[in-house]
C-alpha cells in the first residue's frame, strides 16, 4: 500500500487504533539536561496529567551535562505512549527509552532495619545469605541489611523479613540499563 496512486485499498473496517494500555510494568529511562528545575518540570507534568509514578531514581551519567531519571509506571493504569509523548514535550528531556524487559538489567537497592532478638538472629542472617544481602549494621536489638536486585527480589525479601518485625525500610527505586548497545 506504500506506492503512490495505486489502487490497492485501505478498507475502513480494517483500521484499528493503537492499543492504549499495555497492562504491564514499564521502566522509562530518561536522559535529561542537568539543569536546575528539570525534576520539578517532570514531577509537575506527572501530577497535572494525573500520571502516577511508582518509583523514581535520579542520578548522574557518564556525561556531566546529562542526568538519568529512571521511572517505573503501571502500564495497566496509564497509556505509556501518552506519558512518553508528554515527557518529550519538555525541552530539557533529551531522550526517553521505554526499556524492553528482556533486554534490560534493572536493579534497586534497599535498606531494612529489622528486629533481631538473639533467638531469631541466626534465621535472619540465613535469609540475608540466601538473598545475597549484606548486614551493614548490628545493634543489640536490630540488624540493618542491604539488599540489591530486581524489584521482585526485594519485594520477596521484604515478605520474608516482615514477620520478624520490620522497623524501617528505605528503597531507592529501580535504575536500569539496556543489555547491549550503549545509549550515546
Amino acid at each position, binding site marked *: *500500500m*506504500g*506506492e*503512490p*496512486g495505486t*489502487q*490497492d*485499498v*485501505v*478498507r*475502513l473496517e480494517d*483500521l*484499528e*487504533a*493503537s492499543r*492504549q494500555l499495555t497492562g504491564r510494568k514499564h521502566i522509562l529511562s530518561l536522559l*535529561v*539536561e542537568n539543569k*536546575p*528545575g528539570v525534576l*520539578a*518540570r517532570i514531577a*509537575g*507534568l506527572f501530577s*497535572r496529567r494525573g500520571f502516577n509514578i511508582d518509583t523514581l531514581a535520579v542520578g548522574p551519567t557518564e556525561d556531566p551535562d546529562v542526568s538519568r531519571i529512571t521511572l517505573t509506571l503501571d502500564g495497566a493504569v496509564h*497509556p505509556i*505512549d*501518552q506519558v512518553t*509523548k*508528554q515527557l*518529550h*514535550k*519538555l*525541552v*530539557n*528531556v*533529551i*531522550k526517553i527509552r521505554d526499556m524492553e524487559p528482556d533486554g534490560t538489567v534493572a536493579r534497586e537497592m534497599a535498606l531494612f532495619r529489622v528486629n533481631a532478638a538473639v533467638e531469631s538472629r541466626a534465621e535472619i542472617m540465613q535469609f540475608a545469605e540466601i538473598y545475597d544481602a549484606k548486614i551493614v549494621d548490628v545493634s543489640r536489638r536490630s540488624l540493618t541489611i542491604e539488599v540489591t536486585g530486581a524489584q521482585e527480589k526485594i519485594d520477596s525479601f521484604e515478605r520474608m523479613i516482615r514477620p520478624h518485625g520490620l522497623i524501617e525500610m528505605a528503597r531507592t527505586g529501580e535504575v536500569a540499563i539496556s543489555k547491549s548497545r550503549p545509549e550515546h
Partner: protein
Amino acid sequence: MRAADALCEALKAEGVEHVFGIPGGANLPTYDALYDAELIHIQARHEQCAGHAAEGYAKASGRVGVAMATSGPGATNLVTPIADAMMDSVPTVFVTGQVRTDLIGTDGFQEADVTGITLPVVKHSLLVTDPRQIPDYVHEAFHIASTGRPGPVLIDVPQDLSRADIEYMPIEGTPELPGYKPPTEGNIKQIRIAAKALANARRPVIYGGGGIVNANASEEFREFCASDKLPVTLTVMGLGAFPAPHEQWLGMLGMHGTRTANYAMDEADLIVCVGARFDDRITGKLAEFAPRAKFVHIDVDPAEISKNVPAHIPIVGDAKDVLPKLTREYRALKTDSERLDDWWKRIREWQTTYPLRYEDSRDSEIKPQFMIEAMYEATGGDAIITSDVGQHQMWAAQYYHFNQPRRWLNSGGLGTMGFGLPAAIGAKVARPDDTVVCLAGDGSLVMVCQEFATAAFHNIPVKVFLMNNGHFGMVRQWQELFWEERYKSVEMGPSPDWPRLAEAFGWTGMQCADKSELRDAMQTALETDGPVLLDVHVTKDENCYPMIPAGAAARDMVG
C-alpha cells in the same frame, strides 16, 4: 554592553518591533535600556492585558508577541495570558524582572517564584543565572515559541544580572537544544494510507482547527478540501481557515456549533482531523462521540494524537507540509466524487431542516444575533474581530462568517473573559491598516476597562462594539437551563454609563438601543477617528442555541 541593553538588542535581532508591558522595580534596568532602544513600547495598564495584547499581536500577524512585567505581582499578573497562550498555542515571549540574586529565596520585596508558578502553563521557561546567558536565552525563547506547536516562553531576569556588563554578539542559526526537535514533515506512508482510507470513505468529514491557522496552511487546507468537494467543519479556533459562506461549509462544530456539523460528525465513517485536539467542547460525551467513525489525525504535536480519541491513522507533521502531500496522494487515486452524493443529500437535508436561526424582535429591540449580523454588514465581513468569552463569542462564531484566517481572535481554550480589548489593541498595533473591532461582553469588558487608557494614550484606534445585556449571559443561560433558574450573581447591577466611561478615558462614546439605528451607528463608529466605544443594548435573556448540554452527545443537541 549592559545586559539589559543586550536584551533589547537580542529582541531586535529576532525582528521584534513592539513590546507590551509595565515597568517596576525589578525590571528598571530593562526599561532604562528601552529608553534608547529602537523598540516601540506599548504601556499597558495591567500586566494581564500587556500579555493579552501580545497574544492579539501574535494571532493577528503570526509573529511572536512580546510582553514584559516586573517581578512579584507584575509577573503573577502575567500568569493568565501565559496560560491562555499555552492553551491556544500562541507564539509569545514573556520577559519578567526578578529580584536580585542575593534576595532570591528570602521572600524579598516583590519576590515571587514566577518560573515555578508558571511551570505547568509554559512551553518552556528560562531563569537567567548568568548575564551572559541573556542573548542565547532570547534566541532560544523565540525559536521554541514559534516552531513546532507554538506557545509561551518565559524569561525571568534578576535585576542585578540585567545591570551586569557583558559582551554582546548577535546569535544566529538554529539554537542547539538537544531535547527539542519539533517534527515538520509528515510520514509519507501514513499520508498514503490516509489518502486511500479517504478514497474509501462514503461519509467523510474534514474537521479542522487552530493548527491550520498557526501553520499558515489555510490555502493548502482549502485546496485539500476541494478534492471531491469534501464536507468541512472547523472549531472555534479554526474559523477563517475555510471561507465560511461556501457550499462545502457545514458551520462550526461543537457545543454551540450547527446541528449539521455535529450530526455529520455523529454519522461520519471517516473523520480527518487537521490541527485540532478533540477538546471536550467538541466531543461532548466522549464515549458517544462520532461512534461510527475512523480517525485520521494530523497534528504537529505528537502528544495530541490519541490523547482524547484514539487515532486510526496518525500523521505527525506540520499541516503546511502534510496537506499538499495528502491532496496529491488523494487526487492520484482518481476517486469518484459521486460516491459522496448520498452523504451530501443527507447533509443538505440537515442544512434545510436546521439552519442557524433566531426569532427577531418585532419592535426596536436589538437581538444579539441581529447585532452580529449588523456588525458583519458594517465591516463588510472583512474586519479583525476580537472577542471576550461567553454568549457574544459564540454568536459571533455562528453569525460572523469569517472567510480569512487571523481575522477571529478569541480565547478558545482557557476561555479568558476580558481577552477582547487588550487583544484588539495588540492586533491593531500589528496590523494598523486593518479595521479591528472588539466585540465585547459587558461582563468581560468591565474586567479590563482600564485598557481604554492604553488605547487613548498610544492613539490606537480600535473600535469596541459592546454587546450589553446586563448579565454574565452564558452563566445566566446555564443557571436557567441546568440550575433551575436559581440566578445567582449573574446580573451586572447598575451598569456603568459606558459611553461616558469611555469618554473619560479620551475615547469617543456612543450608544444604541434601537434596531433601526444600529447599522448607521456602527458605520459612524467605524468611520470616527481614534478609539470608539459603541454600547449596544441587546435582549437581556436571549439564550445561545443550538447547544450540546455539557456531558451530552452531539445528537442530543437542544434548541
